């Protein structure tokens, strides 16, 4: 994917960061930079204070489950210089993910970090009020994780049947979806049509 018209090239940001905070950057791409999760607050503070990058606003904060690790993605923007910077913190520990909160740098992280904690189960060290945001305290899972089963499968109790039908990716072979029979998509319709046309059996 080419970077957006006002997105700063990751290499340029990485070079500047390498000079200022040695060892923080662990990966550079065209669109984003990858930083060590324990240094992310330093990195964002530096980008926030730096005159040449001037990342005044935290526009978006989210996370991606990559099966073996988590990515926490920060979209920063400068209002005066009109550009965007994408920073990804790589959280290696998939069992017990923890990284520093950026609330001391951007107040706008307050609810967005709570949302990430609520749905992805990533804890933020130094967040003033880390509680569930959408779901209730005591909900036994983090639904946006790729290995999210369902409430019934976790607790062993009968729950609303709608909650038991979530398809999810197979950890061993990410192309395969478990519970895939519950997805109704054009792809399945198309493949069912082909199968029906060629074999004509099985339906």
């Amino acid at each position, binding site marked *: 994917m080419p970077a957006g018209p006002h997105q700063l090239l990751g290499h340029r940001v990485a070079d500047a960061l390498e000079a200022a905070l040695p060892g923080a950057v662990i990966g550079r791409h065209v669109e984003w930079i990858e930083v060590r999760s324990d240094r992310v607050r330093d990195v964002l503070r530096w980008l926030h204070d730096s005159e040449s990058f001037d990342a005044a606003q935290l526009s978006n904060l989210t996370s991606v489950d990559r099966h073996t690790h988590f990515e926490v993605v920060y979209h920063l923007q400068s209002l005066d210089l009109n550009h965007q910077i994408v920073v990804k913190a790589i959280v290696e520990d998939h069992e017990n993910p923890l990284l520093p909160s950026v609330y001391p740098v951007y*107040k706008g992280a307050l609810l967005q970090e709570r949302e990430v904690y609520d749905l992805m189960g990533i804890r933020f060290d130094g967040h003033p009020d880390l509680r569930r945001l*959408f779901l209730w305290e005591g909900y036994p899972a983090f639904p946006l994780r790729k290995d999210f089963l369902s409430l019934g499968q976790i607790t062993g109790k009968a729950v609303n049947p709608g909650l038991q039908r979530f398809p999810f990716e197979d950890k061993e072979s990410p192309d395969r979806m478990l519970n895939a029979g519950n997805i109704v998509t054009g792809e399945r319709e198309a493949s069912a049509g082909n199968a029906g046309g060629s074999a004509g059996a099985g339906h």
Partner: protein
Amino acid sequence: MVASPQHEFETQDLLINVGPQHPSTHGVFRMVLTIDGEVVKDVVPYIGYLHRGAEKLCETMDFRQGSGFMDRTEYLAAHNAELSYVMAVEALAGLEVPERAQWIRMILCELNRLSSHFMFLGAFGIDVGVFGTPFIYAWREREAIIDLFEEISGDRMMYAYFRPGGLAWDVPLNFKERVREVLKSTRQGIKDFDELLTQNEIFRARTEGVGTISAEDAIDWGMSGPSIRASGVPLDVRREEPYLKYADVDWDVITGENGDVFDRYYCRLLEMRESVKIIEQCLERLESGIIVPDKMPRMLRAAPGEVYIRTEAPRGEYGIYMVSKGGNRPYRLKVRSACLSNLQALRQMSVDQYVADAILVLGSIDIVLSEVDR
């Protein structure tokens, strides 16, 4: 014996629960106010009553289904919500949108902004205490726009009209005349509101200087849309990162000065005039042509990669962060909600205001709970 005039009373803070079912919370939103007398000391918002797991659901839906689902995340400005999603898919799938489809998208998005802002004007009037009149006025103007949407897409709220690549079908033949007709009543409606509310002394006394937030704080809290522009920050995605054809038309970014409740109201009102201006220019430049690319794949597949598309919805920056591993559905989808970010500043704007004004502050950021909770 004379009682000491410096006698200190022991005061106790009172907790008031507002919502989740309350007309002034604009949906299922709950906040707990800590008050000292009539003055708000603390606000704790509780959200999630409308959480449907839209992001998780979209991981299991293909792109065609996902764009329709986006309507449900922002039901007052569904065209704008769809736009971010289909633009993200188009960026990942490498689709080129025909000119005509872009102009029509722009007209519909601006019309949706008008209908959404009319909804705000009506509901905000009730928050202030002007019962009845502005709400019904707003409903009348909004109805005309919604009727037009119904003629085009067949639905009054969940349009599912923008599709990856272009539009679902072409607009009716009398589209231009109908839009001009609607704009005529809209222009009159904006004028009515200007006279009814802006020039009303009681309204101004109620809203001016209330719930002020400075430009620095608004940026720090991650606010966007009219709520940040009222504080004097000219942040508008349509101007900063022009999408569709916004670079080709002439319009102004409206900013306020004080960042109070009145400015947030007035910015929206002035912004509606700009929307009318944009639509008129779009109508002049709308020409006949195709509305989906010639080589449209039957099964849409995205390239592996990721994209963050942001557009200017009526409430602010509505972003879609889409991660694709190839295939016909997103690996991860995040909806960046403008309302959630604006809501973060609620506490700072409401503290040290009167209880009645806390309701005004909440009304002035124009939250839609379906977008906050997703």
